[in-house]
């Protein structure tokens, strides 16, 4: 059923971001905690049209502008738990996401081959903890996981650890084999073990 647009809706929406920051923060909170669709549509209703107007000016192309709005708002919907009202306002957070997506879009459009993405520069959308579902599970550190941490070690440390703890060689043997001083083998072993310990502690 089609309903005529009431007259007062033709007014322009002039609410400033500062005036609705507290309200929008609260909506983002319920999106994060309850996946509340009503709250999200409030956030969407305020930011999406403004983002579109910004994107149109920046990209000069309706389709690209809409892509930017959609990508940004999809991230807001799915990553609302990463918003932290103590660190900044909703408008700053959403602007940052849009700016990052635009940075990556422009990089692709200009066919730039540099391997630099917005996550490196402004990691607003990177998960702080591994995964909320994972941490709630009571997991034990398995050998396989230690193996993963092992993969993160610098190459030179890995080689020394492998030779000593997997092949069972002595430190002197490793030093002779790699033609490096014994002291270097010792320090690499110590640093590698220290690093592994750190990674395990981070996991805890």
């Amino acid at each position, binding site marked *: 059923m089609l309903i005529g647009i009431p007259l007062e809706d033709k*007014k322009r929406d002039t609410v400033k971001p500062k005036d609705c920051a507290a309200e929008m923060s609260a909506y983002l909170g319920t999106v994060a905690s309850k996946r509340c669709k009503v709250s999200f549509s409030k956030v969407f209703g305020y930011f999406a049209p403004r983002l579109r107007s*910004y994107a149109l000016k920046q990209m000069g192309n309706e389709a690209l502008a*809409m892509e930017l709005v*959609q990508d940004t708002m999809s991230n807001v919907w799915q990553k609302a738990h990463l918003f932290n009202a103590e660190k900044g306002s909703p*408008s700053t957070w959403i602007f940052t996401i849009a700016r990052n997506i635009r940075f990556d879009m422009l990089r692709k459009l200009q066919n730039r*081959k540099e*391997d*630099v993405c917005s996550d490196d520069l402004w*990691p607003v959308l990177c998960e702080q903890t591994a995964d909320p579902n994972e941490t709630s599970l009571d997991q034990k550190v398995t050998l396989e996981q230690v193996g993963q941490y092992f993969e993160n070690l610098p190459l030179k440390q890995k080689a020394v650890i492998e030779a000593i703890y997997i092949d069972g060689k002595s430190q002197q043997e490793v030093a002779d084999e790699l033609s490096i001083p014994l002291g270097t083998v010792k320090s690499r072993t110590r640093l590698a073990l220290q690093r592994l310990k750190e990674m395990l502690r981070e996991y805890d």
Partner: protein
Amino acid sequence: MIRFHPTNQTLVSFAEGLTAPNESLLVSAHCDMCDQCATRVAALVESNAEQTFNECIPSQADHALGNMLDAILSRPEASLKRKVIPNQNLLTIDGKEFHLPASLQRLASQVGDWSHLVGKLWQAPVSLGGKNLANFIYMENGGGVPEHTHIGNELTLVINGSFEDELHHYQTGDYLSFNHLYIHTPTSNAKEGCLVFSIIDQPLQFTSGWAKLINPLSHLYFKVSTKL
């Protein structure tokens, strides 16, 4: 104390996401180390955000946006998960370890092998892609790069330690931009040497003595390294 910073114009463009990817990477790494620039960028982003959304828009319903809202809400959950790439926050050269700023940590897992160049100079290439050459360069105490100029632009960030050239003393956190007008002979007299990260859009041009003679060779070093 950090003495060399990106220009104000660079920070403004960076905050808007308009600097080139390589430059962005160095500015970002500098901000990891420099509170002053980080604070300035945060303030710029905040005022950009304020300006962007401080706009009056017609408040009638919009079909295209309405459809978009439905599409977003019906998308499968977690379809936007980002790959978590293992970061490496330490860089090891010959048994010495250096802490890296956050912005460079993902790249550090892609560092090629360290090679010993002339004198007390070490170099490890980073595959950034594109035409630019990115390298970690480490000068041991007393080591340095022979006198050279720059054909293109060179951006350098001092990660740890200090070095000097004919004009200045540079230290941890300094953000340096050298162009073709700048001829210098960097040397490190710091006890722990000096680790820098540098992006050049053309190979260095050596200008003096024996280094000039081996120029084709060093040219090769720098050039070959990017293909790793």
